[in-house]
């Protein structure tokens, strides 16, 4: 995923979703994974230079790891608050950056870990129990 590439934003989560549907997971579970991954993908597009999504699947759990290279998050606790956003005016005008991204990811995942280093980037790990 590339920062600033709003045209292709959403493709990765759509692809992951289609993979999970093919495997035959429960639709509600897939929805949670899709929403969380989409938010993560949007965060990379809005705030980072580039990023990757890693998907690990086994019959017990789905693990999604989103790693990005970017400015990082100085105060994670603040960033986790609903409504907090550093999105620019333009991004908001396009309907992104409502400050629901990280809280929404946390809400949809069964386990949620985030680490970030200012100036380097952010890693989000999410676990979804099947």
């Amino acid at each position, binding site marked *: 995923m590339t920062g600033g590439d709003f045209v292709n934003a*959403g493709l990765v*989560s*759509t692809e992951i*979703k289609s*993979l999970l*549907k*093919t*495997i*035959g*997971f429960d*639709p*509600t579970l*897939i*929805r949670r994974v*899709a*929403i969380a991954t*989409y938010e993560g993908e949007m965060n990379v597009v809005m705030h980072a230079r580039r990023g990757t999504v890693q998907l690990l*699947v*086994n*019959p017990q759990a789905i693990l999604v790891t989103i790693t990005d290279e970017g400015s990082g998050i100085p105060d994670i606790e603040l960033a986790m608050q609903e409504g907090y956003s550093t999105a620019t005016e333009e991004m908001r005008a396009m*309907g992104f950056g*409502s400050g629901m991204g990280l809280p*929404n990811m946390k809400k949809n995942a069964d386990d949620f870990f985030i680490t970030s280093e200012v100036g380097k980037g952010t890693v989000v790990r999410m676990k979804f129990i*099947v």
Partner: protein
Amino acid sequence: MACMRRCPTQAIRVRHGRAQISEELCVDCGLCLSACPEGAVVPMADQVTEMSRFAYKAVVPSPVLYAQFGPDIHPYIVHLALRELGFDEVADVSASTAALAAALAKYLETYQGRRPLISSHCPSTLRLIQVKYPDLVELIVPLDVPREVTARELRRSLPAKLGLAPEQVGIIYLAPCPAKIVSIKQPAEKEKSYFDGAVAIRDVYPVLLPHVVAAKRRFAESQVPGDYTFDPGWATTGALTRFASSANWLAVAGIDQVMRIFDDIENSKLRNVDFVEAMACMMGCIGGPFVVENPYVARATIERQRERYVRQCDVDFAEIERRLRQRYYFFEHPILPRPTRYFDTDIETSIKRIKERERVYQKLRQIDCGCCGAPTCLAFAEDFVRGEAELTDCIFLRQQETRVPS
């Protein structure tokens, strides 16, 4: 081959020179019919002549029919022509359209659940949701559609009025698409359709046209009866939302665009939208696979007809609320997901097979040439894993194998 590439759900494979359609995946959008130069794909539809078994024949045309003959043809001329063709009664859907639009507005007003709701009148879109977006079935508005409500009311009133047994009265629909025909023959949301049959507009057009021309010659506006109503209905995208919706709405047409919007809904991206009107055909039903007129021309015709001939029927809001309370307008059954079990096995084996699919896919050229009979290299890899294709069906892998190492 064109049909195979065009299919939005990759339901088609070409094996031994013949197109095979997976019933499980097909959503009846008809794109393959439009794409096939040979007309090899034959849909199920009735012919007008089969209706002779009924003592009394009523016909309900899709409003798209009125847009097939040009803006100077008053819709009532089409009614006269259909009668000359042998139908005893022509019933317009506009009364049901108006009632259902009001019912929908009411329903949206009081609805509290997950959003956005999705319109229910394009059966191909419904099939698409059942097959590809099982998580979205709960968003489908559970209200029945104008054609069925119209037929239901005829079925209730006609036999008594005519003094005939119910089975002597035939009610048929003139359809713009295979999806609506399938929805009448194998409905997803009720035991049995209120129609006895469905004829494709393109099949009735050639026999109807001479009667339209003749009826026009004799026609004078004063012939139109006082209780006649006309409205082009929901034949073009956006018409329903214009009719019904006070909420934040979105109208989308064309199956690829519909799928993009459904993906957005699944990702919960469309947060501020309350209602989505989704139609499988470009521009809505006027772009249906069974119409004759070019959809752009048809749209222009509809706009002209809207200006000239619209005669709205009165909507009795109190009656609609009463019927909503009685659940008269609701589907008999909820629409349920029809998930396709690609691998039809437990999750663990599925995961193994997905990995195997990936391994095979990496060996392929990934140019989606289609020569193997599958629409994409990934679909071919999947077919192989399911045991439905041989690796040597791929012309590139076959070459590698037959090249004798020296």
